[in-house]
């Protein structure tokens, strides 16, 4: 066990996975010489060489498109997108190829691509360094999506992604890259995709979140005098429906929290799941506390955009 920050845990996972499997390589902008703008890939170039940790041209569609070809040559590429909003140029490759190529091969070829990127707001940065793009990814068939909130999960989910035979996208909450700190198992550490984590047990209301919002929910739980269960989804696809439904069956009240814009955000999917499968368990409306359907703002007012402890707490209170 080591005490690591979330970004250090990411780095640890990459070191372990590249050492474990010669077919894993990392590619992206500034991942090599600089070790990544957040130092997530630090030390890989030195340790594994320039063939296994590759500074690419500045071209996100090129990176992901090349990764498709790399898979055909037997590699397991791990692509870094430098920031959430700078991943958008790769969406075309994602939707038209990454999510479909195995299907197109009649299930005969595998495309074990991992895409990882820092995401989310609150970091006092210029525009387009703050987006939460998970909907674009999770709506795309053929793709899996996971989002850690703790260092141990950051390592374990990334390891699971790299070992997974399907394309997996990992969004890393950059707000807590260096503030989330915790025990991380040494060496091999895999957190299977598709299992939610009960971050806190409670009886009266279920708070469902992922990424940096898990901590916001925990703080709200601290501030409230009702008993809150906090579920850290961790894996958006595959989704641990059973864990969600079990908690809702217990509490009968739900607040879903994410940073992304509200309309057709992943919170809508969670609410729809509950409205479909747990309607008779509910004692009140399924509430969402989310970003708004407006551009992520300049940072002097970003705290009014990102769900806050107060907004979450107010939503919970409105249920009682």
């Amino acid at each position: 066990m080591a005490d690591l920050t979330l970004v250090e845990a990411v780095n640890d996972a990459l070191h372990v996975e590249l050492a474990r499997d010669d077919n894993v390589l990392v590619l992206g902008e500034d991942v090599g010489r600089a070790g990544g703008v957040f130092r997530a890939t630090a030390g890989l170039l030195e340790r594994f060489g320039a063939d296994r940790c590759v500074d690419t041209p500045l071209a996100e569609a090129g990176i992901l498109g090349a990764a498709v070809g790399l898979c055909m040559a037997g590699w397991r590429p791990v692509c870094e997108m430098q920031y959430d909003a700078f991943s958008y140029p790769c969406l075309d490759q994602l939707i038209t190829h990454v999510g479909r190529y195995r299907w197109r091969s009649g299930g005969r070829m595998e495309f074990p691509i991992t895409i990882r990127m820092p995401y989310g707001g609150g970091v006092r940065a210029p525009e387009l360094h703050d987006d939460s793009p998970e909907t674009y990814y999770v709506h795309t068939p053929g793709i899996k999506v996971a989002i850690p909130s703790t260092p141990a999960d950051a390592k374990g989910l990334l390891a699971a992604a790299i070992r997974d035979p399907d394309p997996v996208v990992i969004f890393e909450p950059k707000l807590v890259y260096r503030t989330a700190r915790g025990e991380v198992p040494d060496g091999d550490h895999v957190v299977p995709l598709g299992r939610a984590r009960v971050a806190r047990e409670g009886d009266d209301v279920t708070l469902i979140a992922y990424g940096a919002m898990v901590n916001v929910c925990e703080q709200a739980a601290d501030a409230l005098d009702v008993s809150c269960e906090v579920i850290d989804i961790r894996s958006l696809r595959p989704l641990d429906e059973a864990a969600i439904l079990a908690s809702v069956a217990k509490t009968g009240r739900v607040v879903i929290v994410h940073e992304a814009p509200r309309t057709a955000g992943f919170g809508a999917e969670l609410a729809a799941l509950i409205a479909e499968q747990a309607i008779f368990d509910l004692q009140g409306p399924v509430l969402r506390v989310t970003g708004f359907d407006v551009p992520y703002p300049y940072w002097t007012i970003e705290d009014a955009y990102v769900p806050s402890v107060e907004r979450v707490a107010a939503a919970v209170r409105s249920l009682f």
Partner: protein
Amino acid sequence: MPGDALTDTDLLELYRRMVLLRTYDERSVVYHRQGRIGTYAIYWNHEAIQAGATFALTDEDWIFPSYRESAIGLVRGMPAETILQWWRGHPSGWWSPADWNVASICVPIATHVPHAAGLAWGKKLRDEPTVAMAFFGDGATSEGAFHEGVNFAAVMNAPAVFVCNNNQWAISTPIEAQTRAETLADKAVGYGIPGVRVDGLDVLAVYDAAREAVERARAGGGPTLIEAVHYRAAPHATADDPRAYIDLARVEEERARECVGRFEKLLRERGVLSDELVESARKDAEDLMRAGIAAAEAEAPPDPELLFAHAYVDPPGNLRSG
């Protein structure tokens, strides 16, 4: 002389491949009219490019076709029914690229160019001598994916050959509305790689250019862009009616200069081809197509359960919710 490196046997084999491709195309248009296959992207008179360029490859090399090269697997021995089924919307028309070293037919324009770059680079990293050859049209050169892919290959010094089929039309959009460059081969300059322009109806010229490019790639010299120029002499696809935008007289002229007959004439002049061999090439191709369509039509309709079969190796539990 073009094609100098080829023996008579090679030339005959190349001819047979052209006839095979031509026959596939002509029969497909008929099958479409008969309602036996769906919308089909006609490649009539593109055979010299497809047969010529791929003739420079070994079977270990990878081919990345667009919809315009849908039948290019034929040159690797892929059964005609596989390709026919693709156009019939039947799952047995999907193949594993690894079986033939032929990537899937790329429907969205130019997006396979980075795949070819990645494959070539990935093989090079493994010290395998494989070359990747991607085919695309003149219109494709306007897409960002073309640019990013070729640049990637160039920077990685990847053994890739980019073959642009410049038929001077992207559906109804003429080449002048696509680029202001004098030639598409000129685009190579911006990537620091060789750019070559050849007559796309001269199969030996295409072959020579491809051979040089493949040799350079395999020797560690990096990618090449080949522009094979001709003029689209058939509709874009069976669904297209070009009368609105094309000069039909010009098309007639082009049809008269078609590439299979031209090669046939040349081989006859060189004494390589006889009436008999012409006839046998034609007959073999027709037999293959007859067997292909029969096999395709004999296949049972697919099980709708296939919907859920291949999206994931390890599918999410709720995949059937819908």
